[in-house]
């Protein structure tokens, strides 16, 4: 919004005008995301409305400390009583009525939205508001002109034209439903037609473009769904949340207050998100409609006049910009500028990307809540990850590719994608913080800084996408560019899927301090089989290990890591396009071809040479190290030698890749990230494969024989372990390369921004051509082959520790919780079923007492059936208590457990005596009930009450 071009022809763009439809816009995907978000939020919020309850009562009853506990102890507590926990969740879940109510409300939502979509056009076009165009067109010329305009727009079916009575603005609006569109012309527009016929045509053409572009249905679908969502879901949800807040018992206040507050925050965030996202996507659609209207014979003067009246943004720029965010139309200045240079349609903007990130995460969380699995880190295969990744790719990946293509075609600076990724990551993080998933009963998760991981990971993905897209766009010469960007987008999808999968599995673990946990228990998760103890591990290594280990825990992530360097390698192998590709001519419509097309883009020969040399050197280092171990044997036992050689292999692979990547990132002038990744990946593969064969054949060379005993290809568990570790090292190497080389490359990227990039010197194409493809093909085949082979072995072998073994943690000692947490646990235990058990026992005891004959009342005789029923009930309840949670207080639990044993025995005695018919012993068994209750159960209750009081007092 800097200079105001009064004449579109004067505002000549820096580069040629690019066809705005050279690539998909991704705006439909943004609409779809909005619709899915509203449906997902409905599914989520309605659960709360019908009382599914999202509180963590069962977790507290199991003795978990969600307020102050760290990750390992929480998981240990939950796993300790996992069966009781699952039973509790099932019991306190929705009943059949709740399920029906839930389903009913959801159907109501859909039906109401559908009805509203149908009714809205009728309401907007009701007779009191508009009149048919025939009423103001006595001569018929208006209708003739409108028909001509419909023909110009190429619409198969003409919309209905009406006139909005008494509206003075020279404006028109389109609404309707599929197959029945209505364009409402303001009275003012019809009046102005005589004085400004071209303006009239332009405005009508703009509206026809909306119909042609399919904007009407989807825009009004979001409107209809949103309005119904507000009434059917959002308002009841708010009422329910406030009700929970108001009726909160004091002992639960500390834990539930953050939960309920965040629920309110989520509602507010939803409103902001939906409005901003809808306005944002509508703004891009306006520019598309403008461009179409112009192409069909619209008059640029119409925009120019409005733009001139809008004036220049003055002091209120900040406020105006903020207000503009909520507007469904872009500023007139921008619209005028976009007529000649639709750069706005290609720009990478922060807001849509941020909103897409937040919405995606909300959908992931709301549509597929992970429940207890969130804590246990267990893999759940749902459609959530691939679908969410597809949405992110459709919005963010497409936006990056569009922006890069436009920059290449107009010879502008190619966007780095780094900032976009940071915004995307911020969106994901904010989405995460708006839900109760991480912070649970606290105001913030214990380690919010862990969220930076997802921010940086997202930045890496978009940055990588931008650089790859540039490489592929400049190389692409076969058919449509959509096909070329498809390759990059498919890779981006894989990266996003891996990112979301990884984060979905491990966000809770990271946010609860697992990264920073160097305690025995945490380290044990990874190293339980290595024989090492925590004291032998450098704490910093644990953090790296946790991240790498969690990423390398599934085939999805492993494939994504390979893609990181193979896709750019293939892009390089294609070489720059020679001549002018057909898609470039079509997109530029005959304008001058930019210099970037056809010019050499990236030279990976030197980086790959460095990789090859360093990789071969690493073989030498490994051989020397093996030989030295063989000769001097500084390490005693054979198993220890195997261990050391394993660590050595991994270390050499990682260090080789890292050194190569950093050197290349420093030496390369452009595409530092890609060059570092490709060279690092190539170096890791060269080193890894070499070491693999050296190890396999080491038995044949006496000098190198450390663990192998004969000259045959090794097999067995040890070899499997070595191969696995080597593969693991390859993945780790790439991740570490990305983590270390990215900042170096980012710094160099920044320097480049200040100094213009040197024009790359032409390389000899003919000689480099074949060699380049051969090298790329060999590296790709080796890498893909080894990855596939390892994945196949990994899955075919006996069940190994594919995932983290949390069961090891059960023995973790639970620290004494704070008084508030003890209150929560006591209350949760009581409310989740403990109180019911006590009630059942007391009730059965009273029945037993009343069934006995009374000495003072001779008329009362023994009611045998009643007594038998009471004793059976006590017996059943006491046995049922065994499968219930232990009392979350050690002292009470001892009493409770002892009491239940005594009751079970006494009830058994009672039944036996009844069977035997010796009624004299009956009174004694009933007295035993009474004694047990007085000595154990009631003290337990008293103690729980005192714990609760202490907790309330300390608040």
């Amino acid at each position, binding site marked *: 919004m800097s200079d105001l071009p009064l004449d579109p022809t004067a505002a000549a763009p820096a580069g040629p005008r690019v066809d705005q439809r050279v690539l998909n816009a991704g705006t439909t995907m943004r609409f779809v995301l909005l619709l899915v978000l509203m449906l997902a939020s409905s599914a989520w919020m309605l659960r709360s409305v019908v009382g599914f309850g999202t509180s963590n009562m069962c977790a507290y009853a199991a003795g978990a400390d969600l307020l102050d506990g760290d990750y390992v102890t929480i998981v240990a507590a939950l796993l300790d009583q996992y069966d009781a926990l699952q039973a509790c969740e099932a019991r306190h879940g929705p009943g059949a009525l709740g399920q029906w109510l839930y389903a009913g409300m959801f159907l109501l939502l859909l039906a109401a939205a559908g009805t509203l979509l149908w009714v809205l056009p009728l309401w907007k076009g009701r007779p009191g508001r508009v009149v048919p165009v025939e009423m103001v067109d006595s001569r018929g010329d208006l209708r003739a002109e409108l028909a001509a305009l419909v023909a110009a727009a190429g619409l198969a079916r003409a919309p209905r034209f009406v006139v*909005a*009575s008494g*509206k003075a*603005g*020279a404006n028109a609006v389109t609404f309707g439903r599929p197959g029945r569109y209505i364009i409402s012309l303001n009275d003012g527009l019809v009046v102005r037609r005589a004085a400004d016929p071209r303006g009239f045509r332009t405005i009508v053409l703009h509206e026809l473009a909306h119909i042609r572009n399919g904007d009407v249905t989807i*825009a009004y679908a979001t409107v209809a769904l949103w309005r119904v969502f507000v009434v059917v879901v959002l308002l009841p949800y708010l009422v329910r949340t406030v009700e929970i807040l108001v009726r909160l018992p004091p002992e639960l206040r500390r834990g539930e207050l953050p939960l309920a507050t965040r629920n309110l925050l989520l509602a507010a965030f939803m409103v902001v998100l939906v409005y901003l996202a809808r306005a944002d996507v509508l703004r891009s659609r306006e520019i598309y409609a403008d461009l179409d209207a112009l192409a069909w014979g619209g008059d640029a003067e119409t925009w120019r006049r409005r733009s001139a009246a809008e004036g220049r943004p003055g002091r209120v720029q900040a406020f105006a910009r903020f207000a503009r965010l909520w507007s469904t*139309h872009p500023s*007139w200045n921008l619209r005028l500028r976009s007529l000649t240079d639709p750069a706005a349609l290609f720009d990478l903007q922060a807001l849509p990307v941020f909103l897409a990130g937040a919405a995606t995460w909300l959908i992931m969380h709301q549509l597929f809540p992970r429940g207890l699995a969130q804590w246990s880190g267990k893999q759940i295969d749902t459609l959530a990850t691939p679908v969410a990744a597809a949405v992110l790719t459709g919005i963010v990946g497409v936006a990056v590719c569009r922006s890069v293509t436009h920059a290449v075609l107009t010879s502008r600076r190619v966007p780095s994608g780094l900032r976009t990724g940071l915004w995307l990551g911020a969106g994901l993080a904010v989405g995460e913080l708006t839900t109760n998933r991480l912070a649970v009963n606290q105001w913030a998760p214990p380690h919010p800084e862990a969220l930076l991981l997802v921010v940086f990971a997202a930045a890496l993905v978009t940055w990588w996408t931008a650089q790859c897209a540039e490489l592929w766009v400049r190389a692409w010469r076969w058919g449509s560019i959509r096909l070329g960007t498809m390759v990059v987008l498919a890779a981006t999808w894989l990266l996003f899927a891996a990112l979301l999968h990884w984060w979905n599995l491990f966000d809770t673990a990271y946010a609860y301090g697992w990264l920073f946990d160097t305690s025995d228990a945490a380290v044990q998760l990874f190293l339980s089989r290595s024989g090492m103890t925590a004291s032998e591990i450098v704490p910093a290594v644990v953090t790296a290990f946790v991240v790498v280990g969690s990423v390398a825990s599934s085939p999805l992530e492993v494939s994504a890591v390979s893609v990181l360097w193979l896709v750019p390698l293939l892009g390089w192998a294609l070489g720059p396009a020679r001549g002018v590709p057909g898609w470039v001519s079509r997109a530029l419509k005959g304008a001058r071809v930019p210099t970037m097309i056809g010019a050499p883009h990236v030279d990976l020969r030197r980086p790959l040479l460095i990789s090859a040399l360093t990789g071969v050197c690493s073989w030498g280092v490994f051989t020397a190290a093996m030989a030295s171990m063989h000769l001097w044997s500084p390490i005693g036992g054979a198993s220890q030698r195997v261990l050391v050689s394993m660590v050595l292999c991994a270390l050499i692979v990682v260090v080789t890749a890292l050194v190569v990547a950093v050197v290349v990132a420093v030496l390369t002038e452009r595409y530092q990230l890609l060059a570092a990744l490709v060279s690092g990946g190539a170096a890791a593969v060269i080193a890894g494969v070499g070491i693999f064969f050296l190890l396999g054949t080491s038995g044949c060379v006496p000098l190198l024989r450390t663990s192998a005993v004969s000259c045959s290809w090794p097999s067995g568990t040890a070899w499997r372990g070595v191969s696995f570790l080597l593969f693991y090292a390859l993945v780790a190497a790439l991740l570490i390369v990305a983590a270390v080389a990215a900042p170096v490359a980012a710094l160099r990227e920044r320097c480049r921004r200040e100094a213009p990039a040197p024009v790359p010197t032409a390389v000899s194409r003919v000689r480099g051509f074949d060699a380049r493809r051969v090298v790329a093909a060999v590296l790709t085949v080796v890498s893909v082959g080894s990855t596939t082979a390892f994945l196949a072995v990994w899955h075919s072998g006996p069940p190994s520790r594919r995932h983290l073994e949390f069961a090891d943690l059960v023995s973790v000692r639970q620290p004494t919780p704070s008084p508030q947490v003890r209150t929560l646990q006591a209350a949760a235990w009581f409310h989740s079923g403990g109180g019911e058990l006590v009630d059942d026992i007391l009730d059965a005891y009273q029945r037993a007492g009343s069934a006995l004959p009374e000495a003072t009342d001779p008329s009362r005789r023994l009611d045998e059936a009643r007594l038998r029923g009471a004793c059976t009930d006590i017996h059943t309840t006491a046995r049922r208590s065994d499968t219930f949670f232990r009392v979350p207080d050690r002292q009470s639990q001892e009493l409770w457990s002892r009491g239940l044993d005594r009751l079970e025995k006494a009830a058994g005695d009672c039944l036996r005596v009844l069977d035997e018919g010796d009624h004299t012993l009956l009174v004694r068994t009933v007295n035993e009930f009474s004694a047990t209750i007085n000595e154990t159960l009631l003290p337990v209750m008293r103690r729980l009450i005192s714990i609760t009081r202490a907790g309330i007092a300390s608040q």
Partner: protein
Amino acid sequence: MTNDMEIRQVNTEGRYQIRNIVRYVIADVAPEELPYLDGLCRFDDKTILRRLKRGDRSDEPLGFGLGDLVTLLTPILWLALEETARRAADAAVDGAVRQGKAGLRRIFKRRKEPMTVPPLTPEQLADLRRRVIEVGARHGLELPAAERLADALVVRLVLPDGDRPAFGPARGDAGQAGDDATGGLPEPHV
């Protein structure tokens, strides 16, 4: 319904409905606005006033967008006349309150009726003229054009009966006044 309202007579001598005055002047100075005025006259005075005051500010999705520069004369005339009529009515209300219940009844009754302008004194006419220029300036009408419009309005209001066209509520076709663009101010309501 709207036609009924337009021709409803007011039992006050010498009063003209605002919509009729506006139609008369617009037919003279800006006949192209008559369809717009027709559309407007489908609503009652209160709705029309609200629409005119609010302008077209709705940022409706899929519209062409706001920010048009159309300066219509109809809203200028209407708003200026309405202001004048309201002031005159306020004065009447002051009197009515003094006159007691009968006056109050009249006021309540009148609220639902089309707004009318009583015969204006020279001072009131001067005031009306100034107001048209003011409102015109607010609507982006340049001073000479605003003055011409104000003059046209005032002239039409003060012209002797003999110069008035044969057009008025008695004929019951005030709603179609636009058909004879040369028509004059209707007869005052009797």
